[in-house]
């Protein structure tokens, strides 16, 4: 693709690409180094002559130990996991049914309903969190995981529906019609014929929904109050920052360990994840 001398490839391609990669990944490297750095080194000003930013010669597991023994970190992980899985399942269920109806069935107001779901897709959480907190209180869901299990689908369903509609549209109608002629009901044709073909789409939507739930912050921050109910992001923010004191080592350990489930799922399903992003954009 690149014409000309070798140095051109270096200047216009290799160098910028390396800079991008380093710039995008450096904060994660910094997280890792901070996690294993002893406090004596951690709180050494950058002006100090013996400041060694990029490595440590005395790695320690103290911060991780503090995080696991002195905070409710493992509880927060479990909470987040429970909430994310349930919210994902609910959203996939709703998204599958709604996506099928909107892409395959003819009924009055189908178009405007589709637009309505697309618009809710564009409503950010920060627009509704104050009245929603009130509603959660009235339903007596405050400070329980159910507050999040039921509200996360509001931003996941539109996304799942939208993504799955794209997949359903690509499945030939003949496939379903054959099953119908053989005596399958509408429900059977949908569940046994169309859904299995859309499995890659379901995986993409599920993985994406899971990572979005894991990432959510403001609802968790506002709806949960007791330490043992919190999610990872909120727990770390409120329990490892006390007033002006930041427990940097444990904070970074928590950030690192808290990212592991998402990173793992992501690494197994990169292709599906990328398909999820591009599918959500193309619609």
């Amino acid at each position, binding site marked *: 693709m690149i014409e000309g001398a070798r140095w051109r490839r270096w200047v216009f391609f290799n160098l910028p690409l390396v800079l991008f990669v380093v710039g995008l990944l450096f904060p994660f490297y910094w997280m890792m180094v901070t996690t294993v750095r002893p406090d004596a080194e951690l709180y050494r000003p*950058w002006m100090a002559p013996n400041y060694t930013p990029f490595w440590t010669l005395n790695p320690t597991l103290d911060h991780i130990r503090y995080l696991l023994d002195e905070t409710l970190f493992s509880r927060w992980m479990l909470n987040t996991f429970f909430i994310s899985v349930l919210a994902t399942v609910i959203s996939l269920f709703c998204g599958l049914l709604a996506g099928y109806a909107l892409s395959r069935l003819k009924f009055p107001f189908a178009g405007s309903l589709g637009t309505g779901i697309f618009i809710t897709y564009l409503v950010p959480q920060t627009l509704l969190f104050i009245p929603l907190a009130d509603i959660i209180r009235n339903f007596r869901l405050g400070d329980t995981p159910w507050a999040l299990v039921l509200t996360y689908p509001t931003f996941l369903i539109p996304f799942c529906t939208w993504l799955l509609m794209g997949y359903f549209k690509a499945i030939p109608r003949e496939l379903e019609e054959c099953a119908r002629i053989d005596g399958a009901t509408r429900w059977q044709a949908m569940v046994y014929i169309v859904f299995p073909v859309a499995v890659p789409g379901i995986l993409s939507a599920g993985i994406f929904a899971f990572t979005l739930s894991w990432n959510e912050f403001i609802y968790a921050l506002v709806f949960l109050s007791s330490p043992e109910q919190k999610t990872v992001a909120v727990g770390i923010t409120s329990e490892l920052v006390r007033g002006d004191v930041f427990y940097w080592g444990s904070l970074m350990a928590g950030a690192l360990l808290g990212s592991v489930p998402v990173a793992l799922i992501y690494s197994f399903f990169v292709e599906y994840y990328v398909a999820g992003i591009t599918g959500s*954009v193309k619609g």
Partner: protein
Amino acid sequence: MVIDSVAAARPYVAAPRRGPVTRVLENERWFAFFLLLPTAVLLGLFIAYPFVKGVMLAVTDAKVGVPGNFVGLQNFAVLMNDSIFRIAVWNTILYTAVTTVFKLALGLWLALLLNRHFRAKALTRAFILLPFIIPTVLSTFAWKWMFDPTFSVINWTLFHLGIIRTRINWLGDPQLALISVMIVNVWRGVPFYAISLLAGLQTINPELAEAAAIDGARPWQRFRYITWPLLLPVTMVVVLFSVIQTFADFQLVYILTGGGPANATQLFATYAYQVGVGTGLLSEGAAISLAMFPVLLIVVVVQLLYIRRVETH
């Protein structure tokens, strides 16, 4: 004769007997209704209802534990004269505009780089997405620690490269704080732009660019007159999503500065949180976050119209 007619009727007799539920579901409209029901209930309860409730809250003087009375548009009138609110509006617009330009430019650049063939391409692409998938709050803490004025690795690097002479107080200086917040937002957003635009680039037939090259088009001309127009529809959708997310951003600023110093990085969402949850003035907080709505609506409508126009061309 009798036997014949029985044989003809058999397929109908042999068809499975269907209960009343199945019969209702066989009607296309009822089927669609039941399929959409769970979604409609959840979205109605937790999007439409809170929206209405938000509007109702915003026209009262409710506080935490106090139902409040109808006060009309007083909350909005108060906001108009609230200097912090004005700062928040201006900051939000600036924050959205500046970061969107940078995210688009850098994301496009990265997408063009990734669109070439090189070793370890799949691996590079997978790693590049990390800032986007790692929970924002968690990665933002890493940035907060990198920005720490006393222990900053960024300051150390810049100092040893000879670019700065004294320490830079990234988050403590009112002028710099907004820029620092923008840097983190761009960092987090670039991968999303790059990967989406890369997908758009891959749908463009390379023969077009090759034909233009044979006709003597320079690389810049090929990009300007072939790649860019074909990429425009995808770009518009990516920008639409990103603008909405950025406009309503909360987590980043909440973690990095909490809106400070002296409200220098206050955005719509952080100010709404501070007033509605921090101070407990529910109605005013609801009014602040609702004030986002008209602006978002305009952005969405303009972009959707533009996308439609681009697509019909």
